[in-house]
């Protein structure tokens, strides 16, 4: 039988250390909604989403109340729209109409976000994909809950440099049209099909009709556990992280199984990602500092993060029958109190963050850059990140925000879980001639495993 110290430990994780289930995300396939009439298509996707996810928010709240663990977000991911809307969307306006329909469907069921206004063009763009990408700035400006992602490369296909060049311009346009648009837009290499986290969630074509994916967080729990082993060996450190990750993931597994049972939708994966929030005590940077860095960005940061990421995965894999998505540590600058401080004091630069993305689960995330940054430089940043992902056979992503009218030294406020960020300087030298080249970068030699 369970004992009182175990009960106290669990409840302390929730009340003092910000343990939460970050999201229950329902993945919904829209593949069979494809048709050649825009109005009919919009009716079909609205119907499919509002029917499949109608009980999601209620079930989420019930589980939260019964087990006493907060479930912060309820979300939906859908089949990338470019795959299903090509037959009926012939203009940017058409795609914006689809985005508004998705926004309305998300509002009707009461979810926090809906992801999948997406295009997968790792080797080349179809006309539909290019049109969808060109509609992103307006789609994100004219909706509240829709998130967008574009996959521009993979280890198997190489990098689509035409898409990367276009995304630099699209990110600039998105920033022009709305303050929050870029926070809802992520550019991937090796995008996973089952990621429950926004802004990059979509329901991959390899998935079934509907699936429940759960994202668990808990950087505060890991930090609190590490406070108990200051000065201990790496063996003790790693064991502590692993055990803590195990416990956190088991909570996610329970929530996922319950949600799956109550909604009658199969369980997909648990994504154990240490996802920070701007709250003190809910920060990945603080974990790295607890491991022994004066401030995140100091020499040793990449090694500490590599170890953290790996131990989180090892603990998580043991705890759940299916672990997927991104699983590891997120390093979004504006969403992490420790990262914000280090960036503001100049102790953490984009180049160091780029190095960190080689060993953590995602990429350059929620980074505010000067509004005057040329589109080609943004494309260059995307190409760098995508190359890291391609060569290292991992997911990488870019979610940068060129802030209109602001420059290094200013800060920008996103609000809520998205936090605030200092505008970070980027290298001023041009990569225009590199980015202007047409075509794609071939897949690396180690991708030929057949």
């Amino acid at each position, binding site marked *: 039988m369970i004992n009182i110290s175990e*009960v*106290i430990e669990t409840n302390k994780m929730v009340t003092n250390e910000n343990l939460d289930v970050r999201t229950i995300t329902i993945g919904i396939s829209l593949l069979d909604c494809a048709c050649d009439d825009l109005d009919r298509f919009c009716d079909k996707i609205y119907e499919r989403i509002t029917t499949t996810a109608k009980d999601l928010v209620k079930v989420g709240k019930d589980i939260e109340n*019964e087990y006493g663990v907060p479930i912060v977000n309820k979300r939906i991911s859908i089949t990338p729209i470019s795959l299903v809307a090509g037959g009926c969307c012939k203009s940017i306006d058409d795609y914006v109409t689809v985005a508004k329909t998705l926004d309305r469907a998300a509002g009707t069921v009461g979810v926090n976000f809906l992801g999948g206004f997406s295009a997968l063009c790792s080797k080349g763009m179809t006309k539909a994909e290019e049109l969808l990408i060109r509609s992103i700035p307006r789609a994100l400006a004219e909706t509240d809950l829709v998130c967008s992602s574009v996959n521009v490369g993979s280890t198997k296909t190489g990098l689509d440099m035409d898409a990367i060049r276009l995304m630099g311009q699209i990110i600039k346009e998105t920033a022009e049209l709305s303050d929050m648009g870029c926070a809802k837009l992520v550019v991937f290499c090796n995008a996973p099909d089952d990621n429950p986290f926004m802004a990059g969630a979509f329901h991959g074509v390899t998935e079934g009709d509907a699936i429940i994916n759960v994202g668990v967080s808990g950087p505060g729990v890991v930090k609190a556990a590490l406070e108990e082993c200051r000065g201990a060996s790496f063996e003790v450190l790693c064991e502590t992280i692993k055990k803590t990750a195990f416990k956190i993931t*088991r909570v996610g597994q329970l929530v996922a199984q319950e949600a799956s049972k109550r909604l009658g939708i199969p369980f997909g994966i648990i994504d154990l990602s240490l996802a920070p929030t701007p709250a003190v005590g809910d920060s990945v940077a603080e974990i790295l500092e607890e491991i022994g860095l004066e401030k995140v960005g100091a020499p040793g940061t990449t090694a500490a993060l590599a170890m953290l990421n790996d131990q989180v995965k090892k603990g998580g894999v043991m705890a759940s029958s299916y672990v997927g998505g991104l699983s590891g540590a997120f390093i979004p600058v504006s969403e992490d109190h420790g990262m914000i401080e280090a960036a503001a004091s100049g102790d953490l630069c984009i180049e160091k963050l780029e190095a960190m993305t080689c060993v953590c689960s995602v990429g350059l995330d929620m980074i505010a850059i000067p509004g005057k940054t040329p589109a080609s430089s943004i494309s260059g940043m995307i190409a760098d990140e995508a190359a890291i992902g391609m060569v290292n056979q991992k997911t990488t992503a870019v979610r940068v925000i060129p802030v209109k009218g602001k420059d290094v030294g200013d800060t920008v406020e996103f609000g809520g879980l998205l936090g605030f960020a200092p505008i970070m300087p980027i290298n001023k030298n041009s990569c225009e001639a590199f980015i202007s080249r047409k075509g794609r970068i071939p897949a690396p030699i180690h991708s030929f495993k057949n």
Partner: protein
Amino acid sequence: MNKAVITVVGKDTVGIIAKVCTYLAGKNINILDISQTIVGGYFNMMMIVDITNAESIFGDVASDMKALGEEIGVIIRIQKEEIFTKMHRL
């Protein structure tokens, strides 16, 4: 058997257990185990209860427990047992 864990955290006063037990008896909820300890100066009590034959739905019991806690001046929560067994047992 459907088990739940009730926790009481706060300043120790006369009659906490009595009041909780009286409420549970009224709802046909059987107490399987009680333990208590002091952590950081606060009174912590845990009860493992059987809610299989409870006469109210779980959500109502949870809000009643919360209200009872507010009346006594402590925090009372009820959670289904699986959250603890999943986390602490292989």
